[in-house]
């Protein structure tokens, strides 16, 4: 029987993260959209008939630079694209890849959808939870290095089990390979 927490979690955010204070993570930052980033943004704006279309790319830039998408970051994006912060937050919360909380230095996503599941993906998840000492899905390890989540179909089903670590895509991961994969991370 699923616990009430699990049952309630069907639609819940896939990586509930630690409460955190923005200042603990170094905010306030330099603005994102200056210099090279501003040029990139301006170039992107030429590709679309509306400013709003650059919202997803702008959020990607923010996350690449800061590691996550904070409320302050959303306000910056809103400002450069003439949107409201509330609108930007509405969009951010729709997508799974924007981190609304800081995550570990190595963000590990293990596919466990059916094609990988029948090939033993749950054992791969458990191996990551054990060897990273995260213990629980969505929880960042005490040393701040790792966060492990289950992810829905990564679109590499013939290479079960695919795992994404930040933007690196690793195919055909088995529980036995996990210690070696982790040992190569800085």
């Amino acid at each position: 029987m699923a616990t009430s927490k699990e049952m309630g979690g069907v639609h819940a955010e896939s990586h509930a993260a630690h409460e955190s204070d923005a200042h603990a993570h170094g905010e306030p930052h330099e603005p994102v959209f200056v210099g090279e980033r501003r040029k990139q943004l301006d170039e992107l704006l030429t590709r679309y008939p509306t400013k709003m279309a650059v919202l997803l790319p702008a959020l990607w830039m923010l996350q690449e630079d800061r590691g996550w998408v904070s409320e302050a970051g959303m306000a910056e994006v809103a400002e450069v694209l003439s949107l409201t912060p509330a609108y930007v937050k509405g969009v951010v919360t729709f997508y799974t890849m924007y981190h609304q909380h800081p995550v570990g230095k190595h963000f590990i996503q293990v596919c466990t959808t059916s094609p990988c599941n029948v090939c033993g993906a749950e054992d791969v998840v458990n191996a990551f939870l054990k060897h990273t000492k995260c213990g629980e899905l969505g929880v960042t390890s005490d040393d701040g290095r790792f966060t492990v989540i289950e992810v829905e179909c990564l679109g590499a089903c013939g290479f079960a089990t695919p795992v994404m670590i930040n933007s690196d895509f690793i195919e055909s991961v088995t529980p036995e390979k996990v210690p070696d994969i982790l040992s190569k991370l800085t």
Partner: protein
Amino acid sequence: MGYPHAPHPRETTVLSKYFGDRDAIGLDGWRKRGGYVALEKALGMTPAEIVGIVKDSGLRGRGGAGFPTGLKWSFMKPGDGKPHYLCCNADESEPGTFKDREIMRWTPHALIEGCAIGAYAIGAETAYIYIRGEFTEPLERMEAAVREARAAGVIGPNAMDTGKRVDVWVHKGAGAYICGEETALMNSLEGRRGNPRIKPPFPAVAGVFGQPTTINNVETLAAVPHILNNGADWYKKMARADNPRSTGTKLWSVCGNIARPGNYEVEMGFPFKDFLYDLCGGPPPGRKFKAVIPGGSSVPIMNMEEAEAALMDYEGMVAKGSMLGSAGCIVIDDAQCMVKQIARLARFYAHESCAQCTQCREGTAWATKIMERIEAGEGTMADLDTLLEIGDNMTGKTICVLSDSCAVPIASGIQKWRDEFEAHIKGKRCPFRAAAAA
């Protein structure tokens, strides 16, 4: 196929000919392999001529719905004074499907060429390739290829020195299965939440940015240059003699409990039994196949009797109770618990529901809870009727078909593997888990 295995002699490699060939990735290598000849030819033709050839070839959409591509293109009215757009759906997220990923990784210029031809054929100056955010390597390859093609003048404001403008841009998604639904993709591209839109208006009338839009799958567009180079007749011949409605080659992604998973390319109408046992090597040692989901997780699950009698084209799969869908073939062997796997699929749809329609938001969540309760040995016989009733309420009643896609595997599971469901309920535990623990 070429990656990760060498092609099987019974494959017909058109789209997959250069999978695994690193020299085919760059512009020079691609040109040496006949790249951009079709685009040059296309830009010298009228859009109507191109649409005519594609119509004649019988090419149908490879994303799942199988809509005739030429007919879709003909809905775009020339000279209406509005900007037209082409969207390429590269949000490949349907569990079991990983063919577009390989096209983009190994032959990015094939897709750019297909997009450029498609854009010109529908009177568009801009094509957007919407790639799911998790596809980091395909994104890098496609972005590099677009830069290269643009710098060489193949695409851009003066494509191939013809004075015609054809821009192709890559747009990165941010994690949402539903953005593979065409109108959700358009919302996402516009910088909105990826909620599907009510149709009508259809994309050809009011699509992305409110303008006439055509949206095609990666594999569909990648096939177009081959059709222009070799002719519609060549393409049409790749079909069953008694079924001219499915033509050409089809990429099949094969995964799950099978000896040689990977992508395979065969002509329409290929026997599914030969495919599974000969090309893909049959089940893993000591196991037997139990079930096949032939077209991505949203299509009805086949038992082996149905699968082994099926022919691999749009009509052949329907004749045996399923659908070709996205041709993402998930194979399940006799060591797997169907209840557990169907529960996992239901959880997938619950996670991915955009939640704007009540039937889907509530239905996927409740179906998941009940499926997981049965799997845990705490279900009742009445749960089976409840699941079918919920499924009925989820089918044909929502803006898009995500809701239907959740109901379909549950219904076919209860219908075909009722004994496994009942064993969980009567035995108050999962018989597979019990056997593994013994």
